[in-house]
């Protein structure tokens, strides 16, 4: 059972890393933000599986924190995306 859980966690990490290719090939900024969102959710899923594999309830606390951080990162991106580029970017 533990072996299957660890293999599942590794599989999820590899799958989500595959989605990160969208950061390079993305046509818009929203593409890149969606890849980061997928990474965050994949991280939560890996923490849940590791909680089942033996880390127990503390891993669930880490997953909860990570879900809040992912949500805030996405909201920060959307807040910032409407502004024109500032002079310091040049």
């Amino acid at each position, binding site marked *: *059972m533990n072996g*299957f*859980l660890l293999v*599942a966690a590794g*599989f*999820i990490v590899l*799958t*989500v890393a*595959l*989605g990160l*290719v*969208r950061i390079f*090939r993305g*046509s*818009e900024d*929203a*593409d890149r*933000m*969606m*890849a980061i*969102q*997928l990474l965050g*959710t*994949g991280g*939560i*899923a890996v923490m*849940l*599986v590791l*909680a*089942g*594999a033996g880390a*127990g*309830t503390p891993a*669930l*606390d880490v*997953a*909860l924190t990570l*879900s*809040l951080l*992912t*949500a805030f990162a*996405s*909201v920060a991106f*959307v807040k910032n*995306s*409407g502004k024109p580029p500032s002079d310091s970017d040049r």
Partner: protein
Amino acid sequence: MSLLVDIFSVVMISAGAFFFLAGSIGMLRFPTVLCRLHALTKADNLGLGFIALGVMPLVEWPFGPLKLALIWALVMLSSASVSQLIAISLRKQGRKGP
């Protein structure tokens, strides 16, 4: 009984991992941004939901499954809101169609 619980967990976690794979491949292969947003939310909701359901028998009883249900509810709410926000920001940038 314990074997049935283990089989349930294995099936649910495999289904969740499959939906994550489907979401990632959708992110890479779908033609437009809004289609990719759709794939992302499928991976978020269904993938995480199946994994949370599959891990529930494996954590200790009173607070483990409760925390799993709360994590899933929080991720559902936040990913639904975030997908709407991303779509609104795309709309403001001038995209009219899919």
